[in-house]
């Protein structure tokens, strides 16, 4: 490698936060991810949409290695994804994740949920962690629920706590795996508003969702997946008003016109 290309790589690494190259994954005979190449820049909000079973959730989960991949490379902030062990745990701490089913720790209070990672992973002291947790809970609008258990909260509140829990780790990038799919319609907005605020604050976000409104208003880029491939990538306006691929046209016609 020449010196010039090393320097160029270093610059690129600062810009490119998440890079997937030639990623393949199989579930048995099913080829769920086929030669995925995707680069996400720092501060970018990328929304991944597509029909069910197109591999978008799997894609999201490979980025913090909750799903392993069969071939290809994934790197985050210039560092390749570690295999297992401590290095992987460290990396996951830098990658916030929000799940479809919230997955708040059911035996801990809301406050403890947000404090746990700070104390056990970041080794913050209890007082500072509690303070930060309360600030974050206020920011997502559930500050008054801090001492309740997750089961006592509505879905929308739980999901906002889950976002606060992820934010407490000061992540470099946030992954959202269908964050509103398990919510009642009236609770979807409260979660989306928090996410839009995050996007405005410059958080790097990868969002798998069916919320086209959110994709339109908050995304820098829309990635359309079908059958394990990235079929189309475009800025939201272009994608929604003038999709290039037939598959995307078909998908949009089904969801946008009732």
């Amino acid at each position, binding site marked *: 490698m020449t010196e010039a290309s090393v320097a160029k790589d270093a610059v690129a690494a600062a810009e490119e936060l998440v890079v997937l190259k030639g990623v393949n994954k199989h579930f048995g005979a099913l080829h769920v991810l086929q030669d995925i190449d995707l680069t996400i820049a720092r501060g970018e909000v990328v929304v991944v949409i597509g029909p069910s079973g197109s591999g978008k959730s799997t894609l999201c989960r490979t980025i*913090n290695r*909750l799903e392993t991949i069969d071939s290809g490379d994934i790197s985050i902030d210039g560092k390749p994804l570690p295999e*297992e*062990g*401590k290095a992987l*745990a*460290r*990396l*996951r*701490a*830098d*990658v*916030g*994740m929000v*799940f479809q*089913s*919230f*997955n*708040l*720790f*059911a*035996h801990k209070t809301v406050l403890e949920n947000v404090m*746990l*990672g700070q104390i*056990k*992973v970041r080794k913050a002291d209890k007082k500072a962690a509690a303070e930060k947790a309360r600030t974050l809970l206020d920011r997502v609008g559930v500050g008054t629920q801090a001492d309740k*258990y997750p*089961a*006592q909260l509505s879905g929308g509140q739980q999901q906002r706590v*889950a976002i606060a*829990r*992820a934010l407490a*780790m000061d992540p470099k990038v946030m992954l959202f795996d269908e964050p509103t799919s398990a919510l009642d319609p009236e609770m979807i907005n409260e979660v989306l508003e928090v996410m839009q605020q995050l996007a405005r604050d410059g958080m790097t976000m990868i969002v798998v969702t069916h919320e086209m409104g959110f994709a339109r208003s908050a995304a820098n880029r829309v990635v359309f997946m079908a059958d394990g491939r990235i079929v189309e990538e475009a800025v939201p306006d272009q994608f929604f008003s003038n999709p290039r691929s037939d598959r995307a046209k078909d998908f949009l016609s089904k969801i946008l016109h009732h």
Partner: protein
Amino acid sequence: MTVKLTVLSAVGSLVWGTLLAAMRVSPVPLLRGAGAAYVNIVRNIPLTVIIVFSSLGLADIFGVTMGTDNFDIQGFRLAVLSLAAYHSAFVCEALRSGINTVPVGQAEAARAIGLSFSQTLRLIVLPQAFRSVITPLANVLIALTKNTTVAAAIGVAEAASLMKTMIENEAQTLLIGAVFAFGFVVLTLPTGLFLGWLGKRLAVKR
């Protein structure tokens, strides 16, 4: 003596059983295999055989003295060791079924915030698993309490051997038998009721 035997063996079997359960769900195949082998061997051997082996085998042949020359103390310690070793297999299996009641998402969320495997197990999965298996663990504890009588086989002066001595000295077989049976009910019934109540109280709401 029975109570002391029960409490010490219960603590031992809970600790060792939890470790076994951790082994059986660990990502290391060797540990998984060792845990599975232990459980399947130990729970399928009659307790009497284990206890007699500990006395005749461990102590007499291999010279394991459990840190004492006093035969009574040695017998007691061997009995605790055997009871704990035997019941830990059941504790392990109860816990493992408890671990299966904890949704996968809990562990995924724990790993996603950067907790290691052992932290995930200790802080998230096991606390929830324990709460869901309190009632089955009460079963194991009750069985353990009654199984302490087997320690009579190696001469530990617990309730059953006491009863045997008394029956040999007195003629009141039925009465003495009833008194001792009642004694065990007094020990185990509150245990079961208390743990049943505790299990309900601590149940994790989802």
